[in-house]
Each structure stands twice: as C-alpha cells, then as structure tokens.
C-alpha cells in the first residue's frame, strides 16, 4: 500500500524501504502549522519521527526569470513579494545592489528613512514570527495581541509609504515618499506603548514553564552546524555565532547607531535550541526600538531622491548587496550586460531557504509536536524558500 502511494516519484530510491511498523504520514501542503505551503513526508513510528523529507516548490513563482524580463526600476514591486513579511528589507537590498552597479548616491535623509522603515518592518516581522510560534505550541492569545501591535505598525507604514504589507517604498537612488510631520510623533508614541507590552508578553509566554519545557533543549543547533548549513540571522545568532550584517558589513547609515547584537546564551537549556531562537527574536525587537528612537532623533533634512534617469542602463558588471533582513541575510547578486535596460541575471539569496534545508537533518528521533516547534522557531516563510 505504501509503495503504491508514491509510485510516480522515485522517492523510495532516496528513502530506504520503510521497515514494518513505520508509517508514512504526509504533513501535507495544507497543514495548519507549516507557515505557507510546504509539505513534509514524515517517516514515523507512532509519535517519534525517523525522517522528515521536505517537499518545497509549491510557491515557486520564478521571480529570477521575471527579473530578466522587467526593467531595473519596474522590478522593485516584485521584491516585496519575495518575503511579504519583510518587504522593506528586500526593497532596500535590491535598491542598494542597483545603486552600487550604476554608481548612484543616495541622499542622507533617504538613508535614514530606509533605516526607519526597515526597523519598523523588522519589529512587525518578528511579531508575526514569535506570535505564530507561540500559536503552534498552543497558546493562541499572544498571537492575537501581536497582530494587534502589528496593526499599529501597518497604520504607520500606511501613512509613510501608502501600503500596509508590500511597501515598495525604495526607489533606485532614494525613497518614494517623505516622512509626514505628524508621523514621527506617532511612531514615538507607539514605541512608548509597545515596550511595556513586550514585558507583558514575557510574563505571559516567554517565562511560562510549559512553554519553556516545550522548547528548551529541542533541536539544539551547534554553531559549527549552523554555519555549515548556511543559517543566517536570528537562527545563526541563537547558536552563538556573533554575526550581524548591520555591524559587520556596515551598509546604509547603521554605523551611526549604537545597538548591541543579541546572542543565544542558552537561556533555559542548550545554546542554539528553539527557546534561544525565540528569545533572541523577542530581544531583537527591543533593539530595533532603540535604533528607531535614535534614527527619529537624528533624521536630517534634505531631499529624498537623487537625480536618476527614467530608464536605467547600468554599465557592464555585477554586484552583490545584502541586508540584515528579519530572517537573516537577504542578498541580491545582480549581473548587467550594459546594453539592455533589463538585468541580465538576478540571484536572490534568502534566509528561509537555508533554514529550511537544515530541518531534514534535525528531524531524526524527534516528535511530531517538536517538528511543529522547529518550523516555528526557524521562522521559515514559504515564499522566501521557493522564490
């Protein structure tokens, strides 16, 4: 019966013949806890899994092929769709790549506006990440509170750049809208409201004993293993590797702010376990609040876009520009042939792609409830994996 189920895909050559007593369960594309459309073929023996074979590609839209058919400026709205939870980071990275390629200078105020929008976007993305992880473990209330806090951020970005989710706020050489006068005050007001709410969230979930036992020592990833599998962002820092693009490869105006990089210190168990990844994201939200306050104070006057021709034709060459997105390093490798106004090749490197690749090696002898916890803690977003 099992072989008949997988007849056309040569799965069985990869999986060894399932031993008697093992069960092939499809944690299928429509499963409530896979963030987006992912499919795990679980080889389980009752609750304990022997192997979780991931199947991705359900959301593959071929954005890299699309990039080769749209102009440089026209491709900007597509970058929002790569990771709709961190649209701003994708915008900024693409804009930086093309600016470096074509040699445009971004005015000071535009850089600050990009940092402000990026940090707001990081808080919003971490809110969804930690909230949905708590929901996967079973606590429903924090998720709804976090979505309410995210509503405030959506309203702020609605006023800043016109859209709640797919900002399309960057332009090659600057930013599309200027910061309205009243908005700076509104952001500061929201920050004062938001910080005590994080403490309340900590009291409700982070220090909750059942939550801790569900996550501590679950799939601890060692630093060497994390670097080997190419983990980036909060997942990497939770394993103790001190690497953050905003400080180690300073881009934009991040070198003017002082914020510390949160590392996983094995808060309630091994270093790099799911609980560390969760706490690193919560602490990173506090850091982003600090950056936001400094950026709003130090916002210089000036114009927000430099003179850029309507149709951009950069010279021959290639660049790689990367940004510290909420899910880790989001990089664009743009190759131009100098002749056409469309990029010759755009390769997009995302954080969730490598985070997804580590799940298979972690899934030996893990329970199904823990697999749900790992997917939540690695904060994998399906469109970013498949592009």
């Amino acid at each position, binding site marked *: 019966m099992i072989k008949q189920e997988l007849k056309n895909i040569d799965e069985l050559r990869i999986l060894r013949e399932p031993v008697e007593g093992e069960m092939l369960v499809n944690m299928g594309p429509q499963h409530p806890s896979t963030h987006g459309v992912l499919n795990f073929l679980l080889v389980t023996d009752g609750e304990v899994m022997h192997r979780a074979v991931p199947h991705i590609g359900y959301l*593959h839209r071929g954005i890299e092929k699309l990039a080769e058919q749209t102009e440089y400026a026209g491709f900007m709205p597509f970058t929002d769709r790569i990771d709709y939870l961190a649209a701003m980071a994708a915008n900024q990275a693409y804009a930086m790549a093309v600016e470096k390629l074509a040699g445009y200078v971004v005015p000071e105020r535009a850089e600050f506006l990009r940092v402000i929008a990026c940090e707001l976007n990081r808080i919003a993305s971490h809110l969804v990440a930690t909230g949905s992880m708590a929901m996967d473990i079973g606590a429903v209330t924090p998720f709804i509170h976090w979505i309410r806090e995210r509503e405030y951020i959506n309203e702020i970005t609605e006023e800043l750049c016109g859209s709640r989710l797919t900002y399309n706020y960057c332009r090659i050489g600057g930013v599309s809208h200027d910061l309205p006068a009243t908005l700076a005050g509104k952001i500061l007001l929201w920050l004062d409201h938001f910080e005590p709410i994080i403490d309340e969230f900590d009291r409700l979930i982070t220090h909750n004993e059942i939550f801790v036992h569900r996550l501590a020592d679950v799939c601890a990833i060692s630093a060497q293993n994390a*670097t*080997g599998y190419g983990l980036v962002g909060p997942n990497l820092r939770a394993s103790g590797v001190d690497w953050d693009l905003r400080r180690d490869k300073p881009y934009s105006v991040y070198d003017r702010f002082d914020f510390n990089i949160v590392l996983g210190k094995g808060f309630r168990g091994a270093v790099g376990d799911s609980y560390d990844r969760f706490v690193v994201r919560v602490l990173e939200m506090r850091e982003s609040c600090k950056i936001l306050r400094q950026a709003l104070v130090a916002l210089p006057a000036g114009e927000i876009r430099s003179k850029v021709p309507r149709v951009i034709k950069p010279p021959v060459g290639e660049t790689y520009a990367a940004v510290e997105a909420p899910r880790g390093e989001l990089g664009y490798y743009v190759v131009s042939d100098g002749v056409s106004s469309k990029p010759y090749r755009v390769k997009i490197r995302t954080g969730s792609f490598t985070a997804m690749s580590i799940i298979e090696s972690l899934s030996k002898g893990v329970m199904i409830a823990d697999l749900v916890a790992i997917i939540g803690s690695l904060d994998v977003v399906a469109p970013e994996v498949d592009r």
Partner: protein
Amino acid sequence: MNFEDIVKTLKAEFGETVKEAAPGTVVADPGEIEKIALFCRDNPLLDFKALIALSGVDHPGRIEIVLHLASYGKKHFLVIKTALDRNKPEISTLENVWKTANWHERECAELLGVLFKGHSDPRKLLLPDDWLGYPLRKDYVPPTEYHGISHSRHNPVEKKRGAPPS
C-alpha cells in the same frame, strides 16, 4: 585581512589556476574547485566557514558558477567564479565542504541544467518532478500549459499592436 592577502595565500597554494578578476573576485578553473573550497574553509588564515550563495549565470558561451564566501570570524568576503562549457556543464559537488551547498546545487541543477557530480540527492527541488527544460537558460521557451492547465490568461487590457503574453 584584505583581498590582496587572500589572493596571495591562494596563489601560494594553487599557483596559476587561481587568477584575480574584478576586485574581490577570483577566477578558478572547474577541476580545482573542490580542493580550493576545502582549502578556503580549513586554512586558519582564510577561515571561510560560510558559503553565502552559490549562483549560476548563463552567459552566451559558458555557464558561470559564482560562489560567495564569507568568514564570520575574520569578517572578510571572497567571490570565486568558475566557467563551465555551456552544452555539457559539469562540476564536482561542494556538498561535503559546506552542507548548505546541497540545496543550492539542487536548485542550480534544475534551473540551469548543471550536473553536480557526486551530489547525494539529485532530485528536483523547486520544479515539479516531470518538468522539462531548464527555465533560467536564455534560450528557454516557457510551455503554454502544464498537464492541461494553461499558463496564459487573456489580457483584458489588450493593446491593438499584439498583446504580449502576460
């Protein structure tokens, strides 16, 4: 450790097979790639423990495999490029050097048709298993339908001079 020292150590080890191209980029020939990769990762001076991205670019005469390496300890970066013949692109896999190369190579194989010799799991990653052709190649003609499901939708805002397939 800036780019010149990296190139010097590489040249000391591999001689002329490693040539310096653009600033920050090194060109190596495909045969040596695995040894160079192992050397970059294990040499304490270079310490490139992380492969950031492995991308394939389809140029007219050749397919270029571009490796972006980063060292978290020493905080420096390197780009290694190798050119493969376009009709029979073959290169040895880097899976046992960096585990992340496994998925990057599977994606590059199915989108550009590069054969990674010795890869442990050469199934298709993103595309359906019975997809024909390599989509990212320049001469790729997208099929109009897949298993009876058509790809193109009638563009209601058609222009008189022939509506481009949306």
